[in-house]
């Protein structure tokens, strides 16, 4: 079970069982641009909708809803925790670091200062079948942010 513990870190299970910021919300500030993206993983049917509220500089809120496995749902919770309230540029640096971690086949050492609870997903990168689960909310976020008029991040090479 040692290997499995790497995949299902306590942090991931905790975010899965007690998700942070779950549920789609309207913007507090009526001046914000709000946009969302719905992504599905066609191989397993997991779904997530991510909504971004931003004034173009700061991501005031990142809300989400979805159904899926512990990895995809915990990943959405971590995404919300990490990126909500951040400046767009900063947020995309985190996004890039997370994508790099997940594309690294377990060879990338994550930086906890950048990724916070996201470092718990390092073990997931060793399971190619699950990388898409972890990335699902992050890809939806990228689309939602683009629709709300903020930045882009490099394409994923999964």
């Amino acid at each position, binding site marked *: *079970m040692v*290997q*499995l513990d790497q*995949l*299902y870190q306590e942090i991931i*299970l905790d975010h899965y069982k007690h998700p942070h910021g779950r549920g789609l919300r309207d913007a507090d500030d009526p001046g914000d641009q709000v946009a969302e993206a719905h992504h599905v993983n066609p*191989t*397993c*049917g*997991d*779904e997530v909708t991510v909504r971004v509220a931003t004034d173009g500089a700061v991501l005031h809120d990142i809300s989400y809803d979805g*159904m*899926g*496995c*512990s*990895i995809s*749902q915990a990943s959405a919770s971590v995404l919300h925790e990490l990126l909500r309230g951040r400046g767009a540029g900063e947020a995309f640096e985190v996004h890039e670091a997370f994508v790099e971690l997940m594309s690294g086949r377990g060879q990338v050492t994550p930086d906890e200062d950048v990724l916070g609870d996201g470092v718990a997903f390092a073990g997931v990168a060793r*399971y190619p079948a*699950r990388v898409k*689960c972890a990335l699902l909310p992050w890809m939806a976020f990228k689309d939602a942010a683009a629709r709300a008029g903020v930045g882009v991040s490099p394409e994923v090479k999964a």
Partner: protein
Amino acid sequence: MTSIAIPSGMPQYDDVPRLDVARVRADFPILDREINGHPLVYLDSANTSHKPRQVLDVLGEHYARHNANVSRSVHTLGTEATEAYEGARAKIAAFLNASSPDEVVFTKNSTEAINIVAYAFSNASLRPDGDPRFRLGPGDEVVISEMEHHSNIVPWQLLCERTGATLRWFPVTDQGRLDESGLDDLVTERTKIVSLVHMSNILGTVNATSRITARVREVGALLLLDCSQSVPHLPIDVVDLDADYIVFTGHKMCGPTGIGVLWGRGELLAAMPPVFGGGSMIETVTMARSTFAAPPARFEAGTPPIAEAVALGAAVDYLTGIGMPAIQWHEKELTAYALEALGSVRDLRIFGPTVPVGRGGTISFALGDVHPHDVGQVLDSLGVQVRVGHHCAKPVCSRFGVPAMTRASFYLYTTTEEIDALVAGLEQVRKVFD
């Protein structure tokens, strides 16, 4: 437990043909493997089956000793390859009790077989002289069911888009059976073809087709049965089944990937226009037009998967040697055992029939609200290989209100100890996610 004596002179339980599972397992090299430090427990045979040495040997031997193209060479190797390829066709015809080997069309898989029928329909619809049985247009109907694999949904959706015909379907009951209550309203004079799964790849249900067949005959429609999950596991006799077409795939029945079968009544295949054009399917070709070979060649354009077909013939020999009734009974016992064992797992919900009658050894379930991906991942860490996801049958998942299911499926080499390992693994899943 009470036992009821069966009167003498009647068939007794001990008379049932059986197989020796330990001997069967010795034929499958892969079953020696360890996965994540545990003995392999392979419960994903509905996805693809393993291959016995007898089949692997024939596959290797064909390339090593008899390799040549078929149906076009006068040389010795070409003749050997052609005899092996056509010999496999004859074995499969006999396995199905087909009236002629010419009724067996080799395809890539079941999906391609269904698409050939669907495209033959649309090609016939484009020709003024097309056989009226295959001609579809607005007002005509195609009937499927909510229980189908995507491969028996999407080709018909596309056919209806191309022709303007309407797609209709049988619903599924809460017990996971085909709901035939609306049969007479669903299958009518407007129906041109009914295409149904014989055994569901997700619910395990084996559909009793006789009422439907009778109605199909009454209205003059055609019947296709997707036997991908039944041909590997049950004795199938196309005369008894009384369908017009059946399709199945080699890799689920101890054969290789890349080879499948479309069986059709000879007279129907002969009336169908070709779908793929190319070498081997022609009678004569001029620059202006071509005429076409008789079936099955008409539907086998290009160099076919020769070695795969020959190895599928070997798989049929293997299954016949063990005996399809023995395989069926072995799986029935496993299914009864598994339904009871899984029924003992707290908070486990089985989708589909919960009695081992009118169903095969494919059982899908939910464990509480743990996502099937997580169930499958924990089981894999214990060496237990199950399939998780929507099983290419999203409408069934929607019908039962879940995005995905976990599925365990059995075959002739499955043991009750493996089902015990599954049940023990599910307890481990609980520990991680409770």
